[in-house]
Structure formats: C-alpha cells, structure tokens
C-alpha cells in the first residue's frame, strides 16, 4: 500500500448526520467485480440534485470531506470507501464513524479522522466563509490546517502506523504462521466443517 503522510486539497462540507453507506453508494452500483471505477456511484442519488455540495464548482475537485456525525453507517460495503477514493477523496473527517466503515477506510488508505462536533462546525463555517479554500491534512501530527487555524484529529495509533508505513495487513498476519498453526492444532473436534458437504 502507498505510504501516506501529508497533503493539501480542497475541503468540501457535507452538512448531514447519519450518512449511511446506501447514500454513499447505492446498491445498484455494487454489481461490478473490479476494485476501481466507482466514482460515478458516489452519492449518486444526491448528486442528481443541483444544490448538492459536490455539484458546486469549488467542491468538484475536493479531496477532503468534512461531514456530520455517524458517517458510514449501515451496510458493510467497502465500495463506499472505493467510491470516495475513486472520486478523489483522500480524507474524511467526522465526529463519529461507523465501525465497519472505519475499518474499511484503514485497509484502503483513506484517512478517516475523528474531530469534535465543535471543530466540525468551525471547519464548516471557515469553508463557507472562503469556499474552495485549501486545507492541509498532516497525518503524522494528526492535524488539519486551514490558514492560521489548526484542528487536531484522532485516529487509531495502529491504523496510523499502517497508513504512514504503507503496511500490508495480510503480510503482517502471515508472520504469525506458527501461532495460527498451533491454534488450529488444538481446535475442538465438534467445530463444524463445510466440507465434506452434508445436507445436500
């Protein structure tokens, strides 16, 4: 995975709470078997409305999303993260993320940083005062910088390490081969096996 440290980009304000993954990408877009090309599905229903934030000129090229609480609830679809990334987003900030979305983001190199509700409101206000303003996202120092303003964000230490070092999860786990094999050797014999198939 690509190493991530800091970047600068346009921040878009999505002033909604409880944005579920069906809104981030409706199910009809989940039929593809590739891992890319999901940008057209991002907020597909909302983008049909002219006044939706990503249809406003300065935000069409946004790479940072500042959103309300409970972002990414509902379906486990990792396509939500792929769609955000394919559109060009590199970081999403909210006061609260759904667990599965948070995990999926970490696997795909999308920064999902937790900021306070007060800081969410502050960033929305600053962006409204200066639409299209560039913000700097600094992962190592966990800071969002907008002009003279600095907002710090939370991210799980281990996820941060994996993102900054570009580590591959499966590769890390496979270093524990001996421990996995030892666990398997003492698994209970009553535990089910799918093969050979029964009840067919």
């Amino acid at each position, binding site marked *: 995975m690509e190493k991530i440290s800091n970047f600068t980009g346009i921040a878009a304000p999505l002033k909604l709470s409880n944005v579920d993954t069906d809104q981030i990408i409706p199910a009809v877009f989940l039929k593809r078997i590739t891992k890319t090309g999901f940008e057209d599905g991002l907020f597909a229903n909302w983008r049909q409305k002219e006044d939706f934030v990503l249809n406003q000129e300065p935000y069409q090229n946004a790479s940072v999303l500042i959103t309300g609480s409970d972002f990414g609830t509902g379906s486990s679809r990792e396509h939500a993260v792929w769609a955000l990334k394919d559109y060009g987003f590199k970081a999403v900030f909210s006061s609260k993320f759904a667990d599965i979305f948070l995990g999926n983001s970490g*696997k795909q190199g999308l920064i999902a940083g937790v900021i306070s509700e007060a800081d969410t409101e502050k960033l929305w206000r600053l962006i409204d005062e200066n639409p299209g303003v560039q913000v700097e996202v600094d992962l190592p120092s966990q800071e969002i910088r907008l002009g003279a303003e600095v907002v710090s964000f939370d991210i799980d230490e*281990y996820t941060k390490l994996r993102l900054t070092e570009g580590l591959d999860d499966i590769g890390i786990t496979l270093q524990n081969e001996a421990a996995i094999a030892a666990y398997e050797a003492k698994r209970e014999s*009553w535990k*089910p096996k799918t093969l050979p198939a029964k009840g067919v």
Partner: protein
Amino acid sequence: MSNKPLTLAEKLWRDHLVVKGENGAPDLLYIDLHLIHEVTSPQAFDGLRLAGRDIRRKDLTIATEDHNTPTADIHLPIADATSRVQVQALRDNTAEYGVRIHSLGDKNQGIVHVVGPQLGLTMPGLTVVCGDSHTSTHGAFGALAMGIGTSEVEHVLATQTLPLQPFKTMAINVEGTLRPGVSAKDIILAVIAKISTGGGQGYVLEYRGSAIRALSMEGRMTICNMSIEAGARAGLIAPDQTTFDYLKGRPHAPEGADWDQALADWSDLVTDDGAVFDKEVFIDADTLDPFVTWGTNPGQGVSLMDSVPDPESFSDPSQRAAAQKALDYMDLKAGTKMKDIQVDTVFLGSCTNARIEDLRAAAEIIEGKTKAPNIRMMVVPGSAKVRLQAEAEGLDKIFKDFGADWRFAGCSMCLGMNPDQLAPGERAASTSNRNFEGRQGKGARTHLVSPMVAAATAIRGTLSAPADLEQ
C-alpha cells in the same frame, strides 16, 4: 487462568485469541466459519490471485448467491447483465478455489444468514464472519459474528484470522412478557430507537432477560440481525436449551461424542455472575407496543399507537434537521397518526424476517381474510428450504389465496440490487432492516415493521396491528 468474572463476549474473544496485540496493535482472532456471497467477494478473490495466495481453510468456507438473484423465473439466465456477471464470478471463483457453493436452483440456496443456521453450521462458541453487515444474525446462537469489508474477506480467505481491536460490552436487558401481536422485531426496533443508530458503536451487545429467553431461535436471530442498525458490529444471546434443540440433528451439527463435548463446552457460554458490562440498557417487554419507523434511519421509530413526531420536538439540532429531512423524503406531516399512513406494498422477507416462523406468523393473520385493494404483497422466503417447508405446511396456498405474490428465495426487495424494487415515491411496510433513502429502490419510502404488522397492514391498507383487525 484468572478467575475474573467475564461476559459472554469476553469469553468468546479469549477462546479465539491467536496472538495478543502489543503496543496498540490489534489482537489476532481465529475465524471458525466464513460465509461468502457474490457482492463483496469478487475483489477479494482477485486479491488472492494477484498475490498468488490460496484459501487457507476451504473446509471452513461456504458460499451462496442471494443479493443479485431474481425471485421469479429462476430457471432463466439472470436478465441484468452486470448481476449475471457478478454471480458468474462467484461461481467461477468458488470452482477455481474449491469452495462449496449453493447456487440459484439448489435446495440449500438462500440468504446467507438463513443458510448457515439451517445447515447447522452456525453454532455456539464460534467466530463467524461474512462480507455483510447482517452477519450479526448468527450471534443468536452465542457466536461472535460480525460483518466485514472486502479487504477483510480477502484476509480471512488467506489466513483464517482477523486482526481486531477489542470491543466494549453492552447488556440489553429485556424483562417481562410480550403481549399478543408484539414480537422480536418490535423489541429490536424499540432498542434502536432508544440507543440510536450510533449507540452501539464500538460495542458487542448481549441481549438478556426473560423476554429474550422466551424467544425462539428465529426471534433471537431477528434481534441479533439488527444489532448493526444500532451501530454495533455484533449482538449475542447466550445459548440455552432452545439453541441446542434447534441445532440437534441438523446436517452439520456435532454427533455422538462430539455432541456431548460440545454441550459441555457450550454450558460455559454465559456471562458470569459478577461480570461487569461497560453499559447497560433496560427495556420493559410488558408494556411494549408494535413498533414502526417513520423516518429514513432505523432509529427513527415509534410505537404504532403514536403519531409522526414533530421535528421541533427534538432538542438536538442535528437530530431536528435529520427529522425534517426524513419527513420531507417520506412525504409525511408531523402529527399524522402512524395508523393513518397508507402504503402501496407489503414486503415479507429479508435476513431479518423470512424464516419459517415469520411466514407462519403472517399466514396465521391473513388466513381467510381479504387483502386491501390498494396493496401489493410480496412474500419472499429466506431460503429455498424455507420455501419448501412453507409449501409442505400449505402456507404458500394461504398467501396465494390472499392475493400475495409467492416468490423464490433471495434478498429481494430489502435492497435495490435485483429486479424486486419499489417505484419512486412508492411506500412500503417492510419486514426488512433498513429504511434508508432509496434502499428499496430510488425514491422509495420504507416503514420497517414486524411480520404480524405487515400482515395486518396488508389487510387494512394502512399501517396496522393485528389487534386492529378485531375491532
């Protein structure tokens, strides 16, 4: 081993620990059962192929087709080209890697969360994962079961383990006796309305109390299924005699000495006296009404006896804004009695409520009654086996005589991914799990209900409780 009293969730975690994480690293847990379907797996298989990796434990992996599959004319090729390609990709991938699959037309095909339990693969004391958030369903057996993303699907295929940060624990205590016409679905809708869609975030929920103990396995699955709608990745119910009776004799249930050993091991799968939950919630079953949603997230629910709430009644500004947005989308006015809301479609199906008991409950109410003329009713069994069993019991005839559409198994109208969708602006009473904007089709409006409320609604044409039929 220490003698500290543990919760059920903590015991399951302890029993599956392969490597304890250090310095903030997650724990590595072993996965006993991996369920796969066509939507969230193709990119995982691609990842394996790219890295030249094999599946570590094909014998702990099983696939079925459910999200994209049609529920009518299933002998024909899938009409939608992209759906057909995705289902074919699952067939090709499982053939290439030697994974067991139950395809459309097979008697074991169905919604992945119905198939696992009915084969006896889901059992107490397991870790169960699937690239689907409603994997929490399997927690009804006292298993630690959770939905995962596609990267994690690939991780489990390659390693049969998952790195996970420990969860907090929350007890949902439901004491008392449900009144007639009130069911497991009403309990979980009331729980979500109480703790909100984010209330369970970071927690494993354990449902406890006399009202939970009194539920069948089907009812327990309905409750655990919607744990994710409260933000929790997993929900649990301690196994008991009801669980063991359900399992005994199923195709993959342990036999002989293994069964005896399993029973002995499962007897420890309870929260110890004195164990402390990080949070506790209490629900009174005695006074619970049938519950329905009015908005566009599952936490926006009220008693069926209540009215559509006024957004101004919410003190939290973001909740107030969300309520107003929901009413606009749902085309509802504050103060309208829930029972005055007229619907177009009644959907009885989904991994929440499409097991045999759900079909029986609805059939009992509609038998000999007349469907409201404005209503289209679809009944979609959770699996091909459930359909066969319902037909053996004559339930299909009751539904067809009533004027309902009797379908083949699949996710169907729960999500707008297959041919079963609502038209823009159409309103449904649905036994599924999500009332999100556009979930059942673009512009569609969803009220989440129990199978009994669905049946009564199909008769009266407006959201109704079974008790309304007696007046």
